């Protein structure tokens, strides 16, 4: 007998992350293929109202663990709740977003359930009742199709690759509360320091304007911030500029930084080394601005402008302002 599809929906404050809604939408698709229900586990604080909105994305039922102590991810607390929900639901598939939380929690669950996780998946399909996941590996040089031989199959979904869709407007899921009894833990989650008042995380942004060594210094990122602001995007960076101390590591895109897949990635003064490429090659559209026509980045950018960032970027900002002003 096939079990249900269970989706772990991550929240950020009293709202679900976009990546969680993507997972719920994809979970609905799999549940339909398997003709089972989709059950969403929501863990966080202040999620009562948002939880009932999950029906729109396909959830039949939401199991809700809502407690101030759950506002920030604590591995022991979240693990306990997830295992309790899994016991209730007995799912055959478990999905989570491949965020820092999802990727911390999923392997822990796999050990307790004696099963395996396919990480950072970019595509899922069902074959004879088994989950087959596609995931990039070896710096994006290959795509692996992997199968989890044990049940439940767990997969984490790379943010921004699957689309979140309100396919069933007006649908209200049943909401079942799960009591949180704080377990003993040797870990204390002390505080969450946000990086300023901003800003979408790179992995969730739909527009990223990244600068590299060609930006020449930290002060010059201002022109990228202006462009990002006009487009509702965020600023990223290459490792060369992070290692130079111009930008924080959390802005770094690439193999030892974030893996991003925005709608639009604008690389300014970035040469396009393989270790950078692997972090952004899944962007829908890549634009490169570089003064060297031979730069590697032009080999895989969809659109390139050969030119000086200090001329082209401000011009692009002006043009975008005009464009958005019109529409």
């Amino acid at each position, binding site marked *: 007998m096939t079990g249900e599809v269970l989706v772990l929906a991550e929240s950020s404050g009293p709202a679900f992350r976009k990546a969680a809604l993507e997972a719920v939408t994809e979970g609905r698709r799999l549940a339909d293929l398997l003709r089972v229900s989709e059950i969403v586990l929501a863990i966080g604080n202040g999620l009562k109202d948002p939880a009932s909105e999950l029906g729109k994305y396909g959830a039949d039922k939401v199991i809700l663990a809502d407690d101030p102590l759950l506002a920030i*991810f604590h*591995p022991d607390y979240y693990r306990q709740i997830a295992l309790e929900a899994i016991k209730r639901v007995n799912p055959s598939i478990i999905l989570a977003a491949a*965020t*820092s*939380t999802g*990727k*911390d929690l*999923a*392997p*822990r669950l*796999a*050990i307790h359930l004696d*099963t*395996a*996780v396919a*990480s950072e998946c970019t595509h899922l399909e069902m074959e004879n009742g088994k989950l087959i996941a596609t995931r*990039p*590996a*070896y*710096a*994006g*040089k*290959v*795509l*692996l*199709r*992997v199968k989890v*031989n044990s049940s439940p199959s767990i997969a984490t979904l790379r943010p921004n690759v699957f689309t979140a869709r309100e396919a069933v407007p007006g649908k209200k899921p049943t909401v079942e509360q799960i009591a949180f009894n704080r377990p003993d833990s*040797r*870990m*204390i*989650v*002390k505080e*969450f*320091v946000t*990086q300023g008042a901003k800003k979408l995380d790179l*992995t969730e942004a739909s527009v990223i304007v990244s600068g590299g060594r060609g930006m020449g210094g930290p002060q010059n990122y201002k022109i990228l911030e202006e462009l990002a602001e006009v487009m509702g995007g965020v600023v990223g960076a290459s490792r060369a500029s992070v290692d130079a101390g111009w930008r924080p590591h*959390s802005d770094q895109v690439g*193999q*030892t930084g974030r893996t991003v897949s925005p*709608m639009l990635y604008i690389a300014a003064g970035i040469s396009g080394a*393989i*270790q950078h490429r692997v972090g952004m*090659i899944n962007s829908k*559209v*890549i*634009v490169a601005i570089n003064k060297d026509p031979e730069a590697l980045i032009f080999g*895989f950018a*969809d*659109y*390139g*402008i050969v*030119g*000086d960032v200090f*001329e*082209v970027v401000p*011009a*692009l900002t002006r*043009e975008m302002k005009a*464009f958005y002003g019109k529409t």
Partner: protein
Amino acid sequence: MEGRRSLKIVVCVRRVPDTAARIRIASDGKSIDTSDAEFVINPYEEYALEQAVQLKEKHGGEVTVVTLGPEKTTQVIMKALALGADKAVHLKVDKIPEDPGSIARAIANELKGSEFDVLLFGKKGVDDDNQQVGPMVAELLGIPCITQIVKLDVSDGRGVAHREVEGGSITVETTLPAAFTAEKDLTVPRYASLRELVAARKKPIIVKDVQLRALSLEIISVQNPPPRPPGKIVGKGVDAVPTLVKLLHEEAKVI
């Protein structure tokens, strides 16, 4: 030396093909041919190892490297020893299995019953990109695990770590023993000097054959990623900007 007691530190190190290396799909269509590749220590473990050595320098103690891999992993072990580890345990297998659970069980078996305070991993293998082995080993051993850390302080049997997460950083305190997975900014790795490379040859390496259990996660095929449609150079300098915006709107439809 500060602190009351010296630390036993274990660092789990993975041998990976250099990212710049050419990777080919093997003739069976379900594995990777790395015969042309040069192998290196997984970059994230360089941060972990440096953290281990710094903790040893501060508190005193010993750093042991544990690695599961084929015969040729010796090269990577030598590098780790040159970077400051004191000894190594090489869990020998024909090839590193694709199932992180299988790796984690072999490592946990090795560590079970041994005494350590701090267990360090890299955040992820840059080849398989799984990001699983660290928390899996910790769960198997029943110890706390803090992932993706950019800062670690240890004193009096406790560790305080900063995790880098979406939108900020989380401070987590734990009792020891505990496991941690290293993010890039944890430390600035040092370079091994020639003298240290020579000294590494005298450090002990314990080699053990291990049996892996049946894989729970299996690769069924390996494909080349679909080629990106050929890009175009829109033009030179500021003059190309209006065309770019038009293309992004009308052709690519992303704005």
